[in-house]
């Protein structure tokens, strides 16, 4: 595969899925540079490759990357699933900042765009990283599921009641989409590969808040009461800044640190 800039194809930008095209007037020529590397291929070495393409109305990086793959370079690897900003598959580093590619409109970026895979996670190839494998491991370590007093409740009976505000507060923390942006932006994660990240600490905060979970602070201390957990956080707060779901990560981590410190002293 040459790293030469590939000529813009003759067809106008994608009109499929109604995602693009239609306007009059001159369009911008975009230069999208991608950090490419395929660890499966012994001959592959990391390098930047630049693709030229014509911008279209409403063009997102989802549309742009698919167009590049369909028309210019069939080997380019990246991940999209929902393409609506809700599944967390497409996090990548866009002009130096981790975020979701699917809902990033090219018109909000300069004509030269640089894309790199999320750091920290295992690289599958090009822009594709194995967040799923890491998230599963993190979840297993933290026991990231609700621990029930009775896993087999009588389903014919009325459900247990919960205060409406509490349900809303739990959902607020449950909105995490495990995209990995917080970990990719994290200073501690650079130094400690076993750091559970804001995503992990937020999970624990979510279960701690949930009265249906039978665990207490001593149990939570067991899984996050060390430097790979809540005491590893240096409060740089990049996680909070980059979270595409605007989760209150800084607040949650500070809160959990206080609770866990209190638990540690006991």
């Amino acid at each position: 595969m040459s790293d030469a800039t590939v000529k813009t194809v003759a067809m106008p930008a994608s009109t499929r899925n109604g995602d693009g095209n239609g306007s009059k007037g001159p369009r911008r020529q975009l230069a999208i540079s991608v950090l490419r590397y395929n660890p499966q291929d012994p001959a592959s070495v990391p390098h930047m490759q630049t693709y030229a393409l014509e911008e279209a109305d409403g063009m997102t990086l989802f549309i742009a990357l698919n167009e590049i793959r369909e028309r210019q370079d069939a080997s380019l690897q990246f991940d999209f699933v929902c393409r609506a900003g809700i599944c967390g598959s497409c996090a990548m580093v866009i002009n130096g900042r981790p975020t979701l590619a699917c809902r990033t409109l090219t018109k909000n970026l300069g004509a030269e765009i640089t894309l790199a895979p999320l750091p920290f996670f295992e690289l599958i190839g090009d822009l594709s990283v194995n967040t799923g494998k890491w998230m599963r491991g993190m979840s297993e370590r933290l026991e990231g599921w609700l621990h029930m007093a009775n896993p087999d409740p009588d389903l014919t009976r009325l459900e247990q009641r919960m205060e409406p505000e509490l349900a809303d507060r739990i959902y607020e923390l449950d909105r995490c989409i495990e995209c990995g942006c917080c970990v990719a932006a994290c200073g501690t994660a650079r130094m400690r590969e076993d750091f559970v990240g804001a995503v992990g600490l937020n999970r624990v905060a979510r279960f701690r808040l949930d009265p249906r979970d039978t665990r207490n602070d001593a149990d939570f201390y067991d899984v996050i009461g060390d430097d790979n957990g809540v005491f590893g956080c240096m409060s740089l707060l990049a996680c909070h800044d980059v979270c595409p779901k605007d989760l209150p990560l800084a607040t949650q981590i500070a809160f959990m640190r206080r609770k866990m410190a209190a638990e540690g002293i006991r």
Partner: protein
Amino acid sequence: MKVVYTDVLVVGGGLAGLRIAIGAKRRGHDVIILSLVPPKRSHSAAAQGGMQASLANVIKGQGDTEDIHFEDTVRGSDWGADQQVVRMFVNTAPKAVRELAAWGVPWSRVRKGDRDVIINGQKVTITERDEAHGLVAQRDFGGTKKWRTCYVSDGTGHAMLQTMSDQAIGAAIPVHERVEAIALIHDGGRCYGAIVRNLITGELVAYVARATAIASGGAGRLYAVTTNAVICEGIGSALALETGIASLGNMEAVQFHPTAIFPAGILVTEGCRGDGGLLKDVDGHRFMPDYEPEKKELASRDVVSRRMEEHIAKGKGVRNRFGEHLWLDITLLGEKHIRHNLREVFEICHYFLGVDPTKEWIPVRPAQHYTMGGVRTDYTGQSPTLKGLYAAGEAACWDMHGFNRLGGNSVAETVVAGMIVGEYIADYCDRPESEVDIPTRLVHDFLRREQGKLDVLIDGRGTEDSAALRIAMQETMTAKVGIFRRGGDLESAVADLQKLLQRSRNIGLKCKARGANPELVTAYRVQKMLKVALCVAYGALTRTESRGAHFRQDFPRRNDADWLKRTLATWKAESDTLPSLAYEALDVGRMELPPGWRGYGAKDYIDHPDTPQRAAAVEALKQKMADAPRFAVQESLMPYESLLPERYRGRNERIDEPLGGQK
């Protein structure tokens, strides 16, 4: 060659697949889930609005029961559904909500006292009962007589999938991520697992199992404009179809959702209309009451989508550079409600349209949304023709949706079917005759056959471009097999798709990598997708009536006399370019709710000759049993409880229907 053995192999890590796995594991069977993506990224997460279950907690849901949910679902299906399966479903849905409430889903809850809501464009104050405080809340949705849709803000599917996936991790169920089943292993009578390709390394592995469950979701990506995630390509259905033995049911039944943002096709939830949002045209006129005075914006999705397209065809659409659309106005719901209860909608409008929905109207137009058809199963979820093959969720034709699914019944089906089918799979695995007893030679034959096909794609001298074939298929489906269908268009679509299928047998690749290779993936998938697309188009061409979401302009009436039957498509030989169609009649004589008018949409239809007699018999029985409990009446009309696994039988408690101390 590598072979992995397990008891249950689940293809798909969304809600249905995860729930099957949890159920089978709890019964002591080993389970492996295969998933294209990390399970929490599955398309189940996209269900925003909610899950129907007749809990009757909110005041606008008071009086709701399984009976009303049943009738709404059957009417929604335009009488295409299997009514016994619908009964199994509606009785289990409340149990599913309650199970998930125990497992961790933060369902939105009822707050006692007054609250303002928007109903029919007007602000109304309703008062929630003290005794409902803290129970799971319900909102209004299309095609329902009561407020029945349980929800978690507008991230219902996301929250359900988080909890379900977490519980699967807690149960130590292995999920093999970034792998793809590319063929089922079978001997013509029984399914024994699948040949699976690792999407990172390209390695093929045989997974041999007693039972195999397809829970891979729908086939929205057959179309160019769809709300579906990019992984919803109908591959699970194609795997069943390619056995030549298992059949696909009602593939022509394709739902178009009224409110996809225009032009990107991304869904904004039915909850927008359920919570009081209005559809408006180029003049700012609210047009739905002109067409549907009874249900207005909240008729079923097939009806609302058709009315919208009809209104656009009358010149009432809003024209912009991408084409024509209508408006969804939710500004009347107020900023607080939108930012709190419809936050995903707010985000989608903000990021993809640059629109603030608290102040501006949202451009919308119907887009492909749901695949009612799928792998035909019996009530246990098993293929009637290929033993050991199960299916559940959108990938299945179980068949509770018939020709149109109600909003809120899809995530409900995933979990309910997962519960029920999981039990039946466990029963199947418990039986000694379900031991895997095939010669390894069969497994190796399948592995070699699939490797051979991939080798031809990679090393062959094909010249066709797989991405181009895919685009052509999607454009054909959207242009000719859409909301309004005509014989001529359908004939032309079938001919086009046949040509594309033949061309797909001559694909050549630019990228020859044997490991991760997106072009290779497109190539083998488009070969499968074209077969599924042909089932849709050919089924639509052959069905010369209109029913639910299948609307023929040249045959606009529902025709029960000739078409009260389910389409079954099989693919007999690899060299075929058309599916073989057969039909399975629905028995009016056994229906609890005989065919009639849906309460919205077209009023004229052609009766089945047995309908008057059955309708009279049902009416007579209801009168005779006027004083009997509703359960007794139901039991006399159409018994179904024996079809449920014992674990999920029993009545559902409600505030107004206490169970007492009997348990």
